[in-house]
């Protein structure tokens, strides 16, 4: 059964739980990376990502519509053409930011796809659109940080 078929048979609470599970997977991934990181700079960066995903997970449990009405910022596409690094224990901050931005991008696309698929169901469509927008916000923040740190060409 495809993800879309599964979602068609789920109630809203279960869908929220599924998304929380998705966020938890990201938290687990970044926590593992943090614990394996060889230097303090990488540990700090992964901890920031853990914190970001944790906030998102908590906000899903306290789902409030007005929090999600704001449109996402423009997609900067800064990391779209960059190679995706593999997760390893000696990643640079540059690689960490690329990895995380690409992960947010993929998740945003997945939620956007679900939002488009459930266009006929206002509640589901709104929920997935808001999830996609939130992931794009994360991507925007990560790409802004990437641009500020690695694309100043000084």
């Amino acid at each position, binding site marked *: 059964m495809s993800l879309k078929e599964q979602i068609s048979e789920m109630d809203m609470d279960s869908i929220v739980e599924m998304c929380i599970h998705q966020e938890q997977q990201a938290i687990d991934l970044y926590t593992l990376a943090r614990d394996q990181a060889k*230097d303090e*700079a990488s540990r700090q960066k992964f901890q920031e990502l853990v914190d970001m995903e944790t906030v998102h997970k908590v906000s899903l449990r306290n789902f409030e519509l007005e929090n999600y009405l704001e449109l996402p910022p*423009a997609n900067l*596409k800064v990391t779209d053409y960059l190679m995706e690094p593999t997760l390893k224990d000696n990643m640079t901050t*540059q690689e960490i930011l690329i990895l995380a931005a690409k992960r947010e991008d993929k998740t945003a696309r997945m939620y956007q796809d679900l939002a488009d698929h459930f266009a006929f169901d206002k509640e589901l469509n709104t929920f997935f659109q808001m999830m996609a927008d939130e992931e794009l916000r994360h991507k925007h923040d990560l790409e802004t940080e990437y*641009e500020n*740190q690695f*694309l100043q*060409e*000084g």
Partner: protein
Amino acid sequence: MIRERPQSFNEVPMKERLTIPRQEMPEQDAVERSGNFLEVNLGLTPEQAVIEAQRCIECKKPTCMDGCPVSIKIPDFIQLICNQDFIGAADKIKEDNSLPAICGRVCPQETQCEEVCVMGKRFEPVAIGRLERFVADYAMNHGGSDAKTIEKPEPTGQKVAIVGSGPAGLAVASDLIKEGHEVTVFEALHEFGGVLVYGIPEFRLPKVILKEEVASLEAMGVKFVKNFIVGRTMTIQELMAEEGFDAVFLGLGAGLPRFMNIPGENLNGVYSANEFLTRSNLMRGYDFPEWDTPLYRAKHAIVVGGGNTAMDAVRTAKRLGAEEASIVYRRSEEEMPARNEEIHHAKEEGVEFMNLVNPIEFISDDQGSVVAAKCLRMELGEPDDSGRRRPVPMEGSEFIMDVDMVVIAVGNGSNPLIAQTTPEIDTNKWGNIVADDDGRTSMEGVFAGGDIVSGGATVILAMGQGRKSAIAINEYLRTKVGSTS
């Protein structure tokens, strides 16, 4: 603050000073210089220097000094030039800046002292940088130097190790030797000067100038040790515990090149600016056959980036014989961080500027050498945190251009060696050493400044941080003596 005005030697009436045009720096012809590595700017003549100095209106509140990171007494040295006391002017600068011949050449005066020069409000600012360079060169060529003019202080018996011989390290060495400490500078490379020697080309900063500045410090008593990698040859802990250094200053710079993380960056013919310029500058690759350093001479070179390093790299490629040497920059020229003078010189020398273009892949032949770059056109969006308008890729704008050499000049990061070998020293998430305003790190007796702390700035800012650290080191050593006596 209203400062006491120095005695004026300027005989030109105040109103007339406003009518004197800013003196242009003589320079090599653009066509001629694009085929050689001799210095582009030739320096003001003594007559020009005096005329330029006479443009100074001797402000009661000299804002120019506020614009200088090391607060050179600018009005004072300019007045000495008016009196044709050029060596006195150089000595006046050296009270605050141990490397005037270098700063006179590579400081971005247009965004520092000259930007806030009051003359600049209605007319062109006084050419402070050109004057600094003139008197420093004059003193160098006429035997003026600190070693001869400064009395050696009473030795304190305390030892300071300076790691890195770039601008920050040299500034600290200069200040601490004058306090009577035993100062040793450790350099990883086989020449002294850090980024000044491996990063800045001969045509912008002749290495003989740097050698003179280092010789001047040596004459003052500073010891220089080359081919010594702190963190490998010896750790900081060993320097302090086994070699008896009472304090250490870390001025390692930001020498770790950054790449773009796009496909093809590991092809033959794709260099970091760091490697390309090091081969040409430090290893004298440009000086073939006198020096036999391998250095690819491209037909069509592109340099990715818009900073001074990118300008240095593209102008070097042109001088090495590239028929086409182009800057590929993702923003517009308005947002370029390079100095206007460097952009202007590059254009005069025939460098092509491809702005609002960003490479997304480098393509190879069957030998693994780069033969083309796939690029995207960009358009400017909203301003980013730096105020520069943010470039955004234009969908479907891909194009391919033939190239046989690529130089990536998108910035440098910190070398992780010290962080890896000295866990007592805190680093931030970018790998830069964490230090307070006076350069104190989390390890007792260890100070840091320059690009290893700030992550990449100008020569004079590095020197400014170095000078602050020198004051803090001196204070630390005084306290240390007090607590052990």
